[in-house]
């Protein structure tokens, strides 16, 4: 029997991707939990930025909004949205962590609407917020989402946020800054990257208990396989303890 749940696996796998000393622009929810966990484990010098203006806070309590007081608690600066976005545009932000309602094979994201008619959508979502900006301007975009056929779709209803657009070199041709783009997709089953030429999503690591077929089953498009598919190391005892006791003690995300 597993001693951890889906959300815990996803947050832990995501936290491991963040290098110590790097800069990361994050939103609330699971991405923030991953950044907090990284800061409390292998990456104490992780520099976290929030789009509303919080620069390099010490995260003692989980923010509920990317603009609440926790996002600049013991920070270097309580700045402006322009400060943070300009930093991304200048090329000083290494990672961003995003979510989204839908994702396609090139890592494009939809967080705007479901339906065909923009004037009268079937379901309206919040829109880009800072997601499009972060994914356009930060060096490496990481996405955290539950592996679910309804989320991993053949065609997005709306491209809110750019991934590799139509694949190949279409992203660079669009005018988006060179060398940026989707880097990792982290779900509760696997870690994916993108094949360097076609820019199609491919599985590079499987979490304990899942096979490639399990992941493909919960994906609405054909996934590529990396030549070597790694086994994601199981969540460690101390990772789980810090996640449960310090990162999300009220269980908002991990439900404990």
């Amino acid at each position, binding site marked *: 029997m597993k001693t951890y749940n889906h959300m815990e696996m996803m947050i832990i796998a995501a936290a491991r991707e963040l290098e110590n000393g790097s800069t990361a622009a994050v939103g609330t929810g699971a991405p923030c939990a991953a950044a907090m966990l990284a800061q409390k484990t292998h990456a104490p010098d992780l520099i976290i930025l929030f789009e509303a203006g919080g620069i390099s806070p010490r995260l003692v309590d989980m923010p509920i909004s990317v603009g609440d007081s926790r996002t600049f608690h013991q920070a270097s600066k309580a700045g402006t949205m322009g400060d943070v976005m300009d930093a991304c545009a200048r090329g000083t932000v290494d990672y961003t962590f995003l979510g989204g309602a839908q994702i396609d094979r090139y890592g494009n994201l939809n967080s705007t609407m479901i339906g065909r008619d923009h004037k009268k959508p079937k379901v309206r*979502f919040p829109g880009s917020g800072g997601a499009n900006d972060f994914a356009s301007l930060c060096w490496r975009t990481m996405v955290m989402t539950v592996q679910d056929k309804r989320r991993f779709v053949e065609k997005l209803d709306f491209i809110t946020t750019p991934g590799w657009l139509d694949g190949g070199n279409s992203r660079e041709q669009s005018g988006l800054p060179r060398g940026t783009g989707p880097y990792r997709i982290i779900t509760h089953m696997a870690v994916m990257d993108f094949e360097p030429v076609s820019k199609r999503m491919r599985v590079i690591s499987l979490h304990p208990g899942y096979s490639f077929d399990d992941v493909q089953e919960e994906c609405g498009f054909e996934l590529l396989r990396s030549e070597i598919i790694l086994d994601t190391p199981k969540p460690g005892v101390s990772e789980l303890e810090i996640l449960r006791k310090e990162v999300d003690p009220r269980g908002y995300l991990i439900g404990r």
Partner: protein
Amino acid sequence: MKAIDQSHGKLFMDPDPDHARKFFRKKNRKKMNKVMDLGQAIETFVLDGEYLAIGGFGSNRTPIAACHEIVRQGRKGMGFLGHTSTHDMQVLSAGEVYDRIDISYGVGLEARGLSRCSRAYLESGKVMVTEWTNYALTARLKAASMGIPFMPARTMLGTDTFKKSAAIQAICPFTNTTLALVPALYPDVAVIHVHEADIYGNARFKGIAVADIELAHASKRLIITTERLIRHDEISRDPSMTQIPFLLVDAVCEVPYGAYPGGMPGEYFSDEDHLTDWLDAEKNDETFNAFIKKEIFGCRNHEDYLNLHGGRERMAALRAEECLLHKEFYREDV
């Protein structure tokens, strides 16, 4: 610079800086007492059919008292700047105050979930929607504050967000790369909530500025709601602390806890229980109508609303939460 790609979204506001300059030339710059009641400020400066912007960040240092007053006074047909808007948009949607929106973030209340009321309003087809991103809207306000017609940006490119915006793509004359040009945005009126202001409108706040400095400069009219009025001596003792000078301000309203149920840095945290009440009440039209009747129309002013939610005692608890006092108590390890 020549346009290479047009978007299909509607441009609601005139980006022409010469038209704006004509307005700003005549704007009142007298250093006079601008203190007035919030009701009077909304009645005077927030007008049917005009374009409204709300400062802060959704549920953080956001003038919610002013949003209630706008709904209470029955403003209609407004344009709305949905820039990082969460609970403020929820309140304005409940009053169907606006019928067109420049949106980068709306509908949601971040980690708390989606507002059914805001969602249904945008899904109804009654609202004209133009898409943007947070950076793009900040850049539009920045362009207006600089008196230039647009700002070039490297965001929105290649996406439907661009297609449904009112930006234009053009080739950079220096680097030959594609840029998104976002037009200057001069809102007719903005409301910004601060910690302290003097009677002339010199204002200062703590914590993140979000895009409020750009917004204050770009808006044609500006209402400041403040937790406290302070003496002008206090301002002039350290003018480096002033973020919004009186020149930009048309009205100053003292509204303690004016961001409630949102939070105010260093003063009080957001009332998560009451924000949850909002989300719960929206689940059913009938309960929501009764809820709005009680919470907004049943209150004469913000003080009534605060008293409805525990008054001083509740505010003290939110202050303790904001200051992480519970962490002080339990830090046995130190």
